[in-house]
């Protein structure tokens, strides 16, 4: 049964493609700034963090210019948080589809998660520019970013599935999501380095898979750094657990979507 569920999802992969395409097309058509939005978001938050944490609070940044440090973290975080908040509302936003036609419901949140990837790609290219401006030569390992992002996308999907399912039943989840993401951001070393966290708490920090991902992305982009595959592996394992929980819960709940949405 579970097998056929996934097979069916694959049979509809063209619909997934069209949903992603629609999301992108509409998003870039409707917003005044279009594609520029993908750059402005991480760039502006980096500028603000640079001002408050880099300049005023003198936050350490592992010996690289603070804006480079913060931006590299911000790029991946912007993807994660943007995609999660978008996808967690996707079922409710597509209620008219859920009540009018059948297709694998999993397609809707999956499309939401994938549709944010082009933004991340653009933000990554801008990351290279930011590094060059501050005289930091990007490492060749930067090219590993797409690969490192694969488990990030799976984590995003897992979290989104859980939130989207809850959102169908409880409408106040919508208001809790931004708050949750903000808390999560401060628990993730984006604007501060992992090294300022006391040693005895550090293993706890790695229970947050975004920590392992952002550290790995940074290490890949910056020259002369060794990748730490241990924390990355833990993050991947946790992500897969989250995804599995999300999928199982989604499959159980989707029977009632059309009735309660």
């Amino acid at each position, binding site marked *: 049964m579970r097998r056929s569920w996934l097979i069916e999802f694959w049979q509809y992969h*063209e*619909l997934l*493609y*069209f949903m992603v395409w*629609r999301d992108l*097309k*509409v998003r870039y*058509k*409707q917003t005044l700034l279009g594609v520029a939005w993908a750059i402005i978001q991480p760039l502006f938050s980096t500028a603000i963090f640079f001002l408050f944490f880099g300049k005023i609070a003198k936050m350490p940044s592992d010996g690289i210019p603070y804006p480079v440090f913060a931006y590299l973290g911000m790029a991946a975080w912007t993807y994660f948080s943007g995609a999660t908040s978008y996808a967690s509302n996707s079922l409710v936003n597509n*209620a*008219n*589809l*859920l*009540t*009018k*036609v*059948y*297709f694998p419901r999993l397609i809707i949140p999956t499309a939401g998660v994938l549709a944010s990837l082009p933004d991340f790609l653009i933000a990554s290219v801008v990351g290279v520019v930011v590094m060059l401006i501050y005289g930091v030569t990007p490492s060749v390992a930067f090219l590993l970013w797409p690969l490192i992002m694969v488990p990030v996308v799976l984590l995003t999907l897992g979290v989104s599935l859980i939130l989207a399912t809850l959102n169908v039943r409880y409408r106040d989840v919508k208001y809790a999501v931004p708050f949750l993401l903000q808390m999560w951001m401060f628990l993730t070393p984006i604007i501060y380095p992992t090294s300022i966290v006391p040693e005895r708490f550090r293993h706890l920090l790695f229970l947050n898979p975004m920590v392992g991902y952002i550290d790995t992305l940074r290490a890949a982009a910056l020259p002369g750094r060794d990748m730490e595959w241990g924390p990355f592996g833990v993050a991947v394992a946790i992500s897969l657990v989250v995804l599995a929980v999300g999928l199982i819960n989604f499959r159980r709940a989707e*029977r*009632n979507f*059309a*009735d*309660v*949405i």
Partner: protein
Amino acid sequence: MLAVQVQGIGKRYRLGQFGQGDTMLREALVNFVRNAGARKNRDNEYVWALENVNFNINKGEVVGLVGRNGAGKSTLLKVLSRITYPTTGDFSVQGRLASMLEVGTGFHEELTGRENIYMNGSIMGMKRHEITARIDDIVEFSGVGAFIDTPIKRYSSGMRLRLGFAVAAHLEPDVLLVDEVLAVGDAEFQKKCLKTMDDLRGGGRTVIFVSHNMAAVENLCQRVIWIDKGHVREDGPTQQVLSNYMATFANAQQGGADLGAIKSRVGSGDVILTGLDVLDKQGQTLNFVRSGDALSLRLHFDARSEIRDLHVGVEIRNELGMLMTISNNWMNGLSVSRVPVGQHHMDLDIDFLNLMPGRFYLTLWLKGPDSKNHDLLENCMVMDIETSDYYGSGRGINPQFGLIFLPARWRASEGLVTS
């Protein structure tokens, strides 16, 4: 060979789900809850929208699904479309199923007509190469022509509808579920849709068709399933089921009817029908009507605001929903250019009722010159026409002798012996 097999399907909703639910569910079920309210137990917070529904449909059959609003037709279609899960029972569908519970599902305002064809087509289960292969036909069928590459936010509602139906008409599924799509759109477009449905029938496709348009059901379907309060009330040949179904439409009322209390009415309500009297030539209430009678239908209406150019119409249908005639004042050369606020009536004098004995249904309406309804009461009244001894032969008039009663005389040539 079976195309659809339905075994013991039941669908239970929790009452609480309606209260907080959004408009989506409300649209389909509020009516049902109202109807069910009468028979629900106090300690029972569930309602059954469907209960123990069984039927089989053979490949190539075109089956009509009829029933009142809230009877469970839409729930049944949603279960068969896999949009919602049955609480009990099981069903199977052979081959690809497409459901048209609305046209243009997934249309997005910002996308062009062409882009929406791809979007809508793939939501309905078409593959990209299939859409590409048929896109020229779809565009042609839709008739939106040069607007195909314009965002549909610039389309009229009619254009959207045509575009949506055009995609649906090219789905080529094995089993097609259709819900009320023909209820909208102009007459010409409706004809086109009906023709397409007819072609589907010819093409050996299995179709389940929900409509309140009895003429369309009769025209398209060999078999009708009548759903009443969540159960299959009758399942059989179209004519038989439809005539039983229509017999429950309105309580037989001879002489006159109070129309003000009818709830299922369509229109702006600026002016509403309040009553109908059936009168004889002297203006006395008629308690029965016979073939060949002279009579007047007096339509009472109440204008809540001043109306210009009022058209008053009467439609008469037979038991199968077949339209016998329409009459309205404007067509007959009497224009009513101004209706002051207040109570009024108009009389339709029928010199000679040349309908066969039988049961007929009256649809009454008040419209503006733009054909917009002020008030529309569909099949609001039953008129039973009795047989009459019009010719004084003592043999009556037999309804099996056709649809209309032709007032005529026979004459014999000289030399024939008559008595």
